[in-house]
């Protein structure tokens, strides 16, 4: 069942991203796929702000993207393609990259949390509702501004990633400690699998929106 659902979810996510890209094209001039990829990569690699901390954050993001790709491949490939548990060299690679990814997630969570706080203007319909049901003085022009759905969705994806990172990491780490018997080991494994699936979807959406917003900027 997990294999089937995973394949469907990934197809739906990637399909949704592709459809969204074409239905809502970025800007008037579409650079084309190759130029677009080069531009995105250069945006990722070249720090726009010259501070050392900024460069480290960008590097951390780059490492986490690579780790995510490899972890996703090593984690999902044997399950989806061979119908087996991860084992052998794939498992060793997965276990080697996992702590690196965990560190990067912690750093990114810490450094980006402020930037991804929800603010006024993130959700105009919510402000309109509050203006109607409470006595809070919310300026009407701010409440009626256009919805920046991409940014809001990106923030939601970010917090989903942070929230899901906890069970994703803890389900494995706690199973390594002499705490859980066989039944709870199986529950932990299942939790790791399903959390990884939702986590991957959140990362895909976040990354897509990050690229999209970067291009728009």
């Amino acid at each position, binding site marked *: 069942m997990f294999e089937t659902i995973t394949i469907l979810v990934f197809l739906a996510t990637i399909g949704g991203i592709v459809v969204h890209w074409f239905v809502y094209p970025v800007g008037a001039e579409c650079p084309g796929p190759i130029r677009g990829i080069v531009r995105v990569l250069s945006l990722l690699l070249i720090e726009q702000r010259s501070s050392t901390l900024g460069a480290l954050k960008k590097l951390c993001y780059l490492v986490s993207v690579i780790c995510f790709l490899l972890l996703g491949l090593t984690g999902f490939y044997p399950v989806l393609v061979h119908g087996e*548990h991860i*084992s*052998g*060299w794939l498992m*060793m690679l997965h*276990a*080697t990259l*996992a*702590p690196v990814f*965990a*560190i990067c*997630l*912690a750093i990114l*969570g*810490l450094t980006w*949390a402020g930037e991804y*706080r*929800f603010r006024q203007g993130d959700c105009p319909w919510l402000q309109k509702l*509050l203006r109607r049901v*409470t*006595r*809070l*003085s919310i300026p009407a022009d701010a409440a009626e501004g256009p919805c920046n759905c991409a940014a809001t969705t990106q923030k939601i994806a970010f*917090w989903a990633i*942070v*929230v899901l*990172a*906890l069970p994703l*990491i*803890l389900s*494995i*780490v706690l*199973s*390594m*400690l*002499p*705490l*859980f*018997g*066989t039944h709870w*080991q*199986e529950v932990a*494994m299942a939790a790791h699998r399903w959390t990884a699936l939702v986590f991957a979807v959140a990362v895909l959406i976040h990354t897509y929106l990050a690229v999209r917003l970067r291009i728009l900027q």
Partner: protein
Amino acid sequence: MRRELILALLLLPLLSLTLVLGQDAEEAPAGKLGDKGDGSRAHPTHLIPLFPANEDGEKGPQIDPEGDPVLPFSTKHTCGECHSYDVIKHGWHFNATDVNAPTGRPGEPWIYPDHKLGIQIPLSYRDWPGTFRPSQIGMSDFDFTKMFGRHMPGGGPGETKAEDVDNIDIGRQYISGLLEINCLACHNGHFGQDMGGVNGWAVQIAVKENYRWAAAASSEFAAVKGSAAGMDIMYDPFMPEGEDDEPQVVYRDGAFDADGNVLFDIVREAPNERCYYCHSDMYFAHGEGHDEKWVADEDIHLKAGLTCVDCHRNGIAHQIVRGYPDEVADSNNPLVATTTCEGCHIPEGSDIPEAGRLGAPVAKHVGLPTVHFERLSCTACHSGPWPQDDAVLTKTSRAHRLGTPSVNKAAEMLPHVLSPVFAEKDGKIQPHKMIWPAYWATVTEGEVQPVALDVVEKTVGKVFEDLELKANGDWPGISPEQVAEALKALNDAVDGNAVYVAGGSLYRLAEDANSVVAEADHPAGEPYMWPIAHTVRPAAQALGIRYCTDCHASNAPLFFGSVAVDSPIASETPAVKDMVEFQDISPFYAWAFSASFVFRPFFKIVALGASGILALVLLLYGLRALGAVARVLAEDE
């Protein structure tokens, strides 16, 4: 009148029905009295007459201790009065020669050793891969019984009749008799049951060929003198001449009551000592001077109060539970599915609670990733001696004649059995006992077939007659040149293509005929292995109880222990193999994976630390969000 007529009409059908049912009940097939219990757990008193087998093998008249001749009792005709012998003989201990019997999981073979001829060859009637049929080395069922009947409960090859085969001397068999199933070997509760004593079961068979008398000799109420082996071919055991050297049974005074019955101490549940006679192990794992049974602990199940037969149960069919996974495919015993390690310790999938059978603690396996249950058998962590750097020499009752007179107690006595060897079978790593076969053979159309023992004795035996044999029964250390000489001598007898298999290699004569060429790791020389089930260690002595590095370390015995390549051929640098070579794992991967466990604690610290930071971030911003919600709900600007 009308009333009587109606009554008769009503009763008539009822009467007919009764007659019909009664007839069916009478015609229903019934086992013998003792085939099925009535539910009482008390042991029935066996005060019973004794019956012998006559000249034709049929039931003779009741034994009179004062009669002439006094014959030994036949278990087939004594015990068989109440228990279906023909059903019992299809049971696991007795059905080796039954071509219709399932072979089951490969187990311990019979091993024929000869240190002078450089032979240790695994034999079995069950066609287990890697074993040879006794007939392939020219051994008849009669000879096999003489060689190995000491640790058999009778039946099987002991009951092969000379008239049904062409390699048993009918005259010798008439004198010795058939080796019937000895029910007392398992079911005698009396301390006087004598299997390995100087006049017991083993000696009667192996030395005296007193097959007909062996069961009586093993009992506590009879003694057997004389020897069938020493009798002339014309001797008739049913018309003895009264000489002292003739095989004869003497029943103990007072064994028979006034009616000529004998009181047996029969138990349904065989005592552990009965099983131990054939199923004892000795691991030479505790260092020199510590190689006695009192140094090693018994199986934890026994110390916990169970007996062997609490798990290894059977009904009249004697399809005894062996206790391995997938035994349901080989046995119709209804208990095989549940009488496994998991069946008692990790029961699942039943509508009713089954945990705790026989007092079994339910295994929690705290901290053990579930992948271990897919890759390892239960015995890998729980059975056999604690793995050491090297697989150790091991003795078993059947291979080394344990419990019989004049056993060579040296650890090096042949056959050389090594254990534990962690090898992969049926997709799981499990501990095994192992022997490296050594035998003389021919190669015909690419197939290696052992040469008959008498041919080897006449040819190779002559070449090796001056070999200095060791007192401890170890290999004398044959040189490759001596092997070449032996092959030359053997070639003449077998018309060429003689080879010698030893230490995993196949040796042929070189072109110059003065030396040998070895083909290493030849399939014909593959070691024969059989899984270890006992001795089960306590849970506190299971592999992994300390830390993962019990197995996942670059020097852990499970993967990197050494297994000596045992060979009769002397070598300055004895070959060894790593355990991982017997598993379906790349040695480099095994090493790399084990080495990575050095970083495991750091992995946990890093992951927990990262989780801590993420949790704090969530806490901080979650509280801020909660604050905002609270302000909105309070309509606080």
